[in-house]
């Protein structure tokens, strides 16, 4: 895919879908020429925070009187070229790595190659979700490298942007190390922290940043991104977008499975569980817990919740179903169980979803889902 570069005279937000409100806000900041030295971009995963940050950085460093140079700088920013942009992200740990090593020093050749590959994908497709195994936090050595980067004299560069992706993956120690730099950065240094979970950030970090909120994307935007940036066919994009909660990453998660058969499986699980055919239900769900991360199980739960949303919609005669191919099933379900407590089951299922992240045994969780569904027939209001 060709790297899209913004045309500085025309639209600085090239390639960004949705986020109208955010774009306007940032536009006003650029126009005011009084740029805060730290930003916190917060919002769900996969809604365009990264691309917005890149475009913002490009806009800040553009010079209307010198188009050639501005384009050159814009290209460098898009490629994460220091000194214009320092890109910080969670990294895996190398063998025998201690906090004295630099962030890449102990990584193996394979890890480095993978890192480069994933970063390149992100550069050429800003909505791509970087997936590195065991990259669970932002290393303190990365934060130290920021300090070193900032101490160097780069007077000829107007703005140096430090872009910290998934900032909530800094542990407390790393966050505290960052604080000092956030407090008094040298002139021209601008921090942009991206996070989908700002609750994990220290208050002291949040209070030093200018907060910019991002919204979930509309279904149309998701469809456009999936078809244009990921070359996914229109039909698949449409059905994925419905379940995406406005996040490209979520849509792509579903895509990892054959989505139609995955949906079918979820319906089967529902059917067997409610009919108390526990063994059949378990046989359906079992292949999905073979990946030990539990991600597939989470998707199952999410789809089941969507299905209950359909049930609720049906009750209120809203025809706009997620499982529109299975609308009959939904209607039948409502005829049979007209007075069950849907809120309760959704809350319980969400709790199970949470438990996946807390490392609860997946087999137990799978059974919990089945029994939770089976209990429906006894939980009437």
């Amino acid at each position, binding site marked *: 895919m060709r790297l899209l570069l913004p045309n500085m005279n025309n639209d600085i937000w090239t390639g960004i879908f949705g986020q109208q409100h955010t774009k306007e806000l940032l536009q006003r900041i650029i126009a005011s020429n009084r740029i805060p030295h730290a930003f916190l971009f917060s919002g769900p995963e996969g809604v365009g925070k990264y691309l917005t940050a890149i475009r913002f950085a490009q806009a800040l460093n553009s010079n209307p009187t010198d188009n050639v140079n501005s384009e050159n700088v814009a290209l*460098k920013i898009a*490629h*994460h070229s220091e000194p214009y942009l320092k890109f910080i992200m969670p990294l895996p740990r190398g063998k025998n790595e201690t906090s004295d090593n630099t962030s890449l020093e102990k990584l193996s050749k394979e890890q480095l190659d993978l890192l480069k590959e994933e970063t390149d994908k992100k550069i050429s497709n800003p909505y791509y979700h970087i997936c590195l195994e065991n990259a669970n936090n932002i290393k303190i050595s990365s934060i130290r490298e920021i300090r070193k980067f900032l101490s160097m004299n780069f007077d000829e560069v107007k703005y140096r942007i430090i872009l910290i992706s998934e900032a909530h993956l800094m542990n407390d120690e790393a966050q505290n190390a960052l604080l000092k730099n956030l407090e008094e950065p040298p002139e021209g240094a601008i921090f942009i922290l991206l996070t989908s979970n700002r609750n994990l950030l220290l208050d002291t970090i949040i209070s030093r940043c200018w907060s910019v909120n991002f919204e979930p994307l509309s279904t149309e935007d998701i469809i456009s991104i999936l078809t244009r940036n990921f070359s996914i066919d229109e039909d698949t994009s449409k059905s994925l977008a419905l379940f995406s909660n406005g996040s490209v990453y979520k849509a792509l998660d579903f895509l990892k499975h054959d989505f139609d058969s995955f949906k079918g499986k979820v319906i089967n699980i529902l059917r067997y569980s409610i009919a108390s055919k526990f063994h059949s239900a378990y046989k359906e769900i079992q292949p999905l817990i073979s990946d030990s991360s539990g991600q597939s199980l989470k998707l199952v739960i999410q789809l089941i919740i969507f299905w209950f949303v359909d049930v609720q919609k049906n009750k209120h005669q809203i025809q706009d179903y997620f499982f529109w191919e299975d609308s009959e099933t939904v209607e039948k379900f409502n005829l049979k169980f007209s007075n069950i407590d849907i809120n309760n089951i959704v809350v319980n299922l969400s709790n199970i979803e949470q438990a996946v992240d807390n490392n609860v045994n997946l087999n137990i969780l799978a059974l919990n889902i089945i029994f939770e569904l089976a209990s429906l027939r006894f939980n009437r209001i």
Partner: protein
Amino acid sequence: MEFKVNSKSLEKLLTKIIPAVPSRTPMPILENFLFELKDGLLTIYATDLEIALKSSLNVVAEENMKLVVPARLLYDIVRSLQETTILFQITPGGKINLKTDNGVYTISYLLPEEFPDIPTFPEPGSTSTENIGEVIISGNELKRAIDQTSFAMSKEDMRPAMMGTLMEFTEEGLRFVSTDGHRLVNLLKKEIHLTYNEQYIVPERAISVLVKILEEKDVKILLSKTYISYKVGDIEFITRLIAQKYPDYKSVIPLENENKLKIRTAELLSAVKRMLLFSPTNSRKVKFSITANNVEISAEDIDQGAFAKENIYCEYSGESIDIGFNSAYVNDVISHLQTEEEIYFKLHSPTKAVIIEPVKKKDNEDIMMLLMPVRLNN
């Protein structure tokens, strides 16, 4: 598009440039050389954004061009060749063929746009608003100055300014200062002046690379606010400066150290080296008990049940004093004064900084080291 170059002269050039190529970097483009071919002159650049090295040689070529080639691979292949002529053929498909008498080696190249800009200085005589300083210093002298000062640079990244060596131009001359808060070196070269006074902080990485490329020849140094360039023969070495204020080192140099201890450097150094073996690994403490005409140096490692002491003759005028030091720091300081026959320790009290300097002062330079004592708990 092609050009020819002798393998040995290319190897010589690449050997000088390759220290600036970083090995593990988040920016893969830096693992390349930038080749710039202009009017038969091939200039090769390498940079890690902090430092940059460049050098040129004449080649047989008809066109001008720029390209980016993988540094390690090119260096390794050129280095392993016998003396021969290499023909570089650049193909439009993004490949370079390196042809020798018997072989062809194909490597990929990249376009130069992504390669970072290497800072340059305005041509002499151009109307630039920026103040560019220029001094010439003998390579040997600069190397010695760096050797004597760089050991005391801080490795503690909380204060980035101290992680470099200060080059300070004053009316008295050029001062090299480095400190980590425990020791400080202050070396003054009296004969080197600029027309104005200014401080430049050269980062640690630059210092360590600079020492490697310095030769006997004179070095031309160009100084701007953001970077310094060192021209050593046909190589140009450019480093960014640390954009921080250097701590006010003058305020920590005590003025009232009236008690002077005169001692032979070689004797003290060899004794200190033995004490290193006996000082505890955590505190590295060594004790100096100073009386008139005698210093008793002792170290004790209680965990190991080891103890050592030595007596050395000295000349001392003040009151008897017991003072403790970190033996590794004493060793560092004295070994960098080895060439002096005798040195002075100027003391005040067991808790105040000690000044160490040579007894015989040179005409054109002035060196002073400062060492913080450690507390003795008896």
